[in-house]
C-alpha cells in the first residue's frame, strides 16, 4: 500500500459541494488523487471500464468511494447496488456522503451494504473536520482490502 497513489472517487452532482470536498482533501493531503463524477451513470461507466473509460491502466479502481444519494440519471442507491452486487467491486469501501438525514435514506443505504453513512455538516469547520476524520479513518487507520483490477 505504501507508495501506491491513493485514489478517491467522488460522485457528487453539486459542483460546489464537490469543490468543497476536493479542496479540503487536497489541503489535508488525504488523497493523492480525487476523481469527480457528476452523475451515477458516468461513475458506473468508470468503475466497469465502459464507454470512455475502457483503458484499465489510465482508469484504476479507487480506494474509497464517496457517494451522494440523489444523483441525476442513475441514482446513488442504484450505483451502490451495482457496486455491491459486483464480485470485484464489492470490496471497495463506499461512504455515503449526503445532505439527507432521512431515516429512509440511511436504512436504504445500509440495506444495500454501504460501509458508512455521513451527513454533510452545515458549517465550514465541521465540514473540514469531517473530511479530515474521514481521510484518517478510511485511508489511514482502516486496513483496506487489496483492490483487484
Amino acid at each position: 500500500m505504501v507508495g501506491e497513489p491513493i485514489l478517491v472517487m467522488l460522485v457528487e452532482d453539486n459542483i460546489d459541494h464537490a469543490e468543497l470536498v476536493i479542496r479540503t482533501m487536497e489541503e489535508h493531503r488525504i488523497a493523492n488523487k480525487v476523481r469527480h463524477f457528476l452523475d451515477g451513470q458516468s461513475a458506473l461507466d468508470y468503475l466497469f471500464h465502459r464507454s470512455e473509460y475502457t483503458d484499465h491502466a489510465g482508469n484504476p479502481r479507487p480506494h474509497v468511494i464517496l457517494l451522494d444519494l440523489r444523483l441525476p440519471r442513475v441514482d446513488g442507491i442504484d450505483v451502490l447496488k451495482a457496486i455491491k452486487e459486483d464480485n470485484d467491486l464489492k470490496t471497495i469501501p463506499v461512504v455515503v456522503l449526503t445532505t439527507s438525514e432521512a431515516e429512509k435514506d440511511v436504512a436504504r443505504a445500509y440495506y444495500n451494504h454501504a460501509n458508512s453513512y455521513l451527513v454533510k455538516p452545515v458549517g465550514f469547520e465541521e465540514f473540514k473536520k469531517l473530511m479530515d476524520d474521514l481521510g484518517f479513518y478510511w485511508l489511514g487507520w482502516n486496513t483496506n482490502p487489496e483492490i483487484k483490477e
Partner: protein
Amino acid sequence: MKNAENFLLPPQFNDDEANITARLIYFTSGGLIVLSLLFLTVSPLIAPDLTVRVMLLALGVIPINLGIMTLVRFGRLRLAGILLTMLIWATATMGTITTGGILAPIFIGYTVVITLGGLLSRNKGNVYLTLICIVSGFLIALAETNGMLPQPHTYAPYAQMTVYSFFFLAIMLMQNVTAGSFRKLLVNVHDSDGKYRSLLENIPITTYINSTDIKSLTEYVSPQVERLLGYPRDDFLSDPEFWKKIIHPEDRERILEENKQSIDMGHTFEMEYRLIAKDGRAVWVKDEATLVHDENGKPLHWLGVWTDITSRKTAEEEQSDLISVMTKRTIQLQTGAEVSRAASSILEPGKLLPTIVELIRNHFDYYYVGIFLVDNSRKWAVLSAATGETGRQMIASGHKLEVGDSSMIGWCISHGHARIALDVGEDAVRFRNPILPLTRSEMALPLISRGEVIGAMTIQSELPSAFSRVDITTLQSMADQVGNAIKNARLFMERTNLITELEGRNAELERFTYTVSHDLKSPLVTIRGFLGYLREDAASGDMIRFDKDLNRIASATDKMQALLNDLLELSRVGRITNPPEDTSFGQIVKEAMELVVGPNDEARIKFDIHPDLPIIHGDHPRLVEVMQNLINNAIKFMGHETKPHIEIGLNGYDRDGKPILFIRDNGIGIEPQYHERIFGLFNRLDPSIHGTGIGLTLVRRIVEIHGGRIWVESEYGRGATFLFTLPLSQTK
C-alpha cells in the same frame, strides 16, 4: 203342528240338483200315499172285487213311502230314489203277475218306473231300468204263455180306467214336480245373474271387457262410464278403440306402450293415467285389467276396472304444489340470507352487484337479472350489473334508460315503487328488448337507501305470470338490502378514496420534508462551506479565489431562493384559486405558446397543433401553466435534432370519457426507468440543463387536482410523448 207342516214340505239342500231330486221323491211318495188312500175309498164303489187287493197294496205302499220320505229328510236321496223306483217296479210286477199277465192294467206302472228312473238317475241308470222293465215284461209274458200264471183277471172298463188313472196322475205328479223345479231353478239362475249384474253396474267403479288381440277392442263397458266420463256408453261399444282416443295426450304414449306389453306378455295391466272427459276435464283413473282364460287355458278376454282417482291425484298434486311453494320459500329465504351476507361482506361496488344479480338469477332460475344505478345527473339509469353474456354485452355498450315514464325501470325509479308486467307484451311501459327475446314476465324493484332511490333492479322470467305477491315482497326486501349495501359500498369507497388521498397527501408531505431537509440544506452547506474559505482567501490574499467563492455563495443563495419560490408555488397549487370554467384547450395551448416560444424557437421548431382540441373544464391559468411547462420541456430537451417537431393533439378518450391530450416531441427522449422519476420533486435527469426540477411535479399536481392523470411514453433518443387527461366540459 209346525213339525207336521214341515213334514209336508220337502227339506232344503244347498245343491239345486239335490233340491230337485228331493222334491221329486218327496212329492211322488206323498202323492202315492194320497192316491193309495183315494183308491182305498173309491175302489169299493167302482171295483168291489179289487177292494181286498187294493187294501193290501195300500197297506204296503203307505208305510214304505213314509219311510222313503223320512230317508229324504235325512238326506239319503239316492237310497230313497232307488227304494221308490224299486217299490213302484215291484208293485207293478207283482200286480201284473197276480192279475194274470201283461194285459193287466197295472202293467202300465212300468212307464212310471221308467219315467221316475229317468228323472232321478244320472248317467245310464234309466237305460238299465228300462231294460229291466222290458226283460221282466218278457219273463211275465213267457210265464203267461206257458200257463204258469193264474187266470187273467177280467176288469170292468171302469176298474181298468181307474188303474190307468192312478198311473196317469202319478206321472202327472212327477212331471209337475220336475217341471216346477226346473222352472224354479231357471228363475233362481236368472235371479242370481241379475243380482250380479246389478252389483256390477251399481258399484262405483267402471268395468269393461276388452278383446285379447293386439287392438284390445272394447267389447263391454259398464254404464258407470257415462257418469265417469260423460260419454254415452255406445261411444265405447260402437267404436272399440274409443278409449285409446280419450287418453290424455301426455299419458297416451306410455299407456299404449304398457298396454301393448301387457298384451304381449299376458300379464296384468295396472296403470294410473288421465282420460279426457266429454266436458274436457282430465279424469284420473286407475286401470287394472286381468287376462281371463277358459278352463283349457286359452285366453278369453281382458277383464278390467277403471277406478276414479281424480280426487286422490288432486290431493297429491295439491300436496306437491304445497311442497314446491315451500321449497320456493326456502330458496327465497336462503337467497335472502346469501344476498344479505354478500350485502354485508362485499364492500366493493364492482364486485357486490355482479354477485347479487348472479345469486338471485341462479337461485330462482330467472331468465335475466340486472341492476341499474342512477347517474349523477339523476336523468339516466345506467346498467351496472347484469347476468349472462347478454348482460355483459349490454354493460359494455353502456346500456342506460331514461328516468321517467318511458320504461319500467325509469318509472320505478321516478316513482320509487315496484312495477310488474306479467306478460310484457301487454304492458306498454316496457320497451321490448331485442337482446332478451324470451322475457314473458318482468319486475322492476326500486333500490332505496335512506329514502333516496339510487337505482332499480330488473328481474325477468321466461314464464308468463312468473311473480306472485309473495315473490315481490321477498325480492323487494332483498332489493332494500341491496340498496343499503350499495350505499354502504359507496361510503366505503369514499372512505377508501379519502384514505388513499390522505396517504397521498402524507407521502407528499414526507417528500416535502425530505426536499426541505435535502434540497434546501444543500445550498446551505455550500454557503457555509465557502464562507469559511472566503475568510481563508481574504487571509491569504487570494483575490481570484475570493471572487470565485463569493460567486458560489451568491448562486447558492439564488438557488435557495428559486427552490423556496417553487415550493411556495407548489403549495399554492393544492388550493385552487381560480374557479373552474369551460375553456377551449386550443386557447390554453395558444396562450402557453405565447409565453414560452421565443422567436428563435419558432423559426427552428415545427409546431403542429391539432385543430380538433376539445372544450375542457378547469382552472384556465393553471392549465396554461401546465402547457407552458410541457412545451418548455419539449423545447429544452430537443437535443441536437435537425428537424425539431412538436405536436399537440387529442388521442381519443379514456374509460371515464375524459379526453386524452398529448404533446409529442422528437427530442432526446427518456429512458423507461425514469418515466416515473421525472415527475418527482426537484428530480432532474440532466444537471447541465437549467432548472430546479419542479416543472413536471407542478404539472402532475395540477393535472391530478383536475381529476386527471399524466404519464409519458418515450424511449431514449426517440422523442417523448406526454399524455394527460382532463375533465370534459359538462355542457355539450
